[in-house]
């Protein structure tokens, strides 16, 4: 009867595993936060990123970016004459850790702003708490768009920026039919909706779509269906390291003449460096920044050199690392304009439409009505040798969806919820 035991044991261990990990985390904090927060002789930036676990590739980048930004701020005399301090916790790619450490940052460390979150799941897990306590969250990460919250500013690229540009550029190149495979959770599903919507509105054809469970690493059935549909363009919105296994298997399936496209791969987690060439050959991506842009602009080169000098061992700095850095700079600008770190005053400053930063990825401006960023989008081609080329630059792409289609103006009233094109 051993295999019966096996089932029981499996259940028991998964429960024990959950609870043990839960209690182990309380002392895993590394932040240098001093307890006497009441005195406030420093300005504190909280950071919630994943240094370990599934999202570590991006999380470590973002944490390092925050370190670098704080160092730069202090080098230039701090903020409002005070030193800036980073209080950072490792959220271990675990949503419950985000909730736990978010409370700690707000209650114990009393930080002035929180920079962080990688997946939409962890952002949505802490957003209610941020709103209830009138704290301030900068979500510096590409996501599916639609967050309309008084207390949250989203500086990463959103679908009306990356998806639209990507699909329109590929349609301009003469492609007509699009097949999308996407990670099976809100991000992937909403991105797919945006792809389909843009394709149809611009005269293209949707050849098919499939949502892939997170953690899937074997793709033969998916590849078979793509083969049968035979599209011009395969849009890949795959997330996580397991799903990145798709490309090598797709390459070796012998399919040719399908152009690949993505807003996730390469720009987020430098897959062109971890996946052996030419699996990502002939893939177009859109996004805000890749470190190869050092050859493209001086601002990018300066940023990449600064990064390399501090983190020579690290795999590289890409879109999310860059935007974390820029997010902190945007917040710092707003603090200087407001003359205080008090949350309402800083939000007022951010909503003025005057908070703008010349970043490594071009000009980034906070749009007051939507709390999102107006930014430059780059169309990047990954060639057979996995070298990246900037093919096109579209300047000052607006985060228009919440403002123009849903008529939301956060300066007037905040619904404090996330909208998706699915509820329309």
């Amino acid at each position, binding site marked *: *009867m051993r295999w019966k035991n096996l089932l029981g044991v499996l259940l028991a261990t998964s429960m024990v595993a959950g609870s043990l990990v839960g209690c182990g985390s309380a002392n895993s904090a590394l932040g240098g936060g001093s307890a006497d927060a009441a005195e406030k002789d420093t300005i504190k930036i909280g950071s919630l990123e994943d240094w370990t676990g599934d999202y570590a590739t991006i999380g470590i980048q973002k944490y390092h970016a925050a370190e670098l930004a704080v160092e730069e701020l202090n080098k230039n005399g701090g903020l409002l004459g005070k030193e800036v301090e980073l209080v950072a916790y490792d959220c271990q790619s675990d949503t419950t850790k985000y909730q736990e450490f978010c409370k700690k940052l707000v209650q114990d460390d009393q930080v002035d702003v929180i920079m962080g979150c990688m997946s939409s799941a962890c952002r949505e897990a802490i957003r209610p708490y941020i709103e209830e306590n009138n704290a301030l969250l900068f979500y510096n990460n590409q996501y599916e768009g639609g967050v309309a919250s008084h207390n949250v500013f989203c500086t990463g690229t959103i679908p009306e920026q990356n998806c639209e540009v990507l699909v329109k550029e590929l349609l301009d190149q003469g492609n007509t039919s699009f097949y999308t495979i996407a990670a099976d959770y809100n991000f992937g599903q909403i991105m797919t909706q945006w792809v389909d919507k843009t394709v149809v509105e611009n005269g293209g054809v949707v050849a098919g779509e499939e949502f892939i469970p997170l*953690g899937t690493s074997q793709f*033969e059935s998916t590849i078979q269906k793509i083969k049968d549909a035979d599209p011009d363009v395969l849009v890949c919105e795959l997330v996580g390291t397991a799903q990145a296994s798709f490309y090598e298997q797709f390459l*070796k399936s012998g399919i040719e003449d399908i152009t690949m496209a993505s807003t996730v791969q390469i720009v987020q987690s430098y897959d062109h460096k*971890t996946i052996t060439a030419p699996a990502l050959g002939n893939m177009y991506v859109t996004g805000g920044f890749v470190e190869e842009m050092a050859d493209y602009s001086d601002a990018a080169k300066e940023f990449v050199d600064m990064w390399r000098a501090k983190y020579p061992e690290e795999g590289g700095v890409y879109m999310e690392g860059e935007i974390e850095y820029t997010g902190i700079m945007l917040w710092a600008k707003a603090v200087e304009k407001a003359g205080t770190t008090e949350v309402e005053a800083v939000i007022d400053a951010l909503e003025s439409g005057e908070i703008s930063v010349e970043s490594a990825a071009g000009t980034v401006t906070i749009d007051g009505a939507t709390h999102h960023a107006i930014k430059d989008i780059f169309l990047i081609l990954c060639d057979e040798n996995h070298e990246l080329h900037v093919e096109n630059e579209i300047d000052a792409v607006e985060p228009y969806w919440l403002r123009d289609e849903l008529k939301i103006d956060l300066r007037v009233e905040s619904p404090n919820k996330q909208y998706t094109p699915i509820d329309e």
Partner: protein
Amino acid sequence: MSLFGILYQFSDSFTFLILAALGLAIIFGMMGIINLAQGEFIMVGAYATTIIINQGFPYPVGILGGALAAALLGFVMDRLIISHLYQRVLDSVVATWGISLVLSEGMLQLFGPSMQSVSMPLGSVSIDGSKYSVYKLLLTLLAIGVVILIYLLFTKTEFGRKARATMQSRDISESLGVNTKAVYSETFVIGSALAGLTGALYAPTMTITPTMGNNFMVQSFVTVMCGGANPILGSVLSGGVLGLVNSTLSVTISAFFGKIGLLIITIIIIRVLPTGFTGLIEKTGARRRR
């Protein structure tokens, strides 16, 4: 889709299940130890293979190296920890779970969050007007080969006889002069080597990360559970049935339903056949003999 296409989908699914489960099945079936570090042994095999191939060695050397690395790790783990826990199912679960955490976090510290993977060798072949990956086809043949080899090992060799005797009754085997501790040790090393081999074989198809072992865990556990006591027969039968359900649903609906279907059929199987496929075979065999 052509007939070969359907067969290809099934064999791909079957191969993954069998290879993921075999090491776990042997350690569990023979020793009664539930190795929760199975996924991490697979991960270690994949890392070793990737490193060796990236050094410029040919694929067969890398794959062998992956299996050997995991076998070595299995040997060390057995001497240090597992050998003290023979016949202690629950304790072994906690201990191997601890080993799995140490291995995956240790790998993260050693090599960082990801590693440059190696590409899949051998390109593609055109059959019936559609193209298929040669390496994936080869994997199926290799999986069948491994199963046959393990079968021969446990039925035709001196070690196999001792191992099966130990599995049936440890006390009687000991009284007949079998060194059961040595048998357990060797079994654990063989199970570890098989896990390493799985990692080695799948390394070229996957992204190499410290958590990659998790991708195998669900599949390997459900296959062993449905298989029942006999590690080889059970794994093959449950790999066949689960693979059929998984590939059919994946191709006709989506990968999501393939995964759900795999779990639902597992629930049904352990409800209807609480002793797994092995139990069913033994029961019908006994009935026929009567």
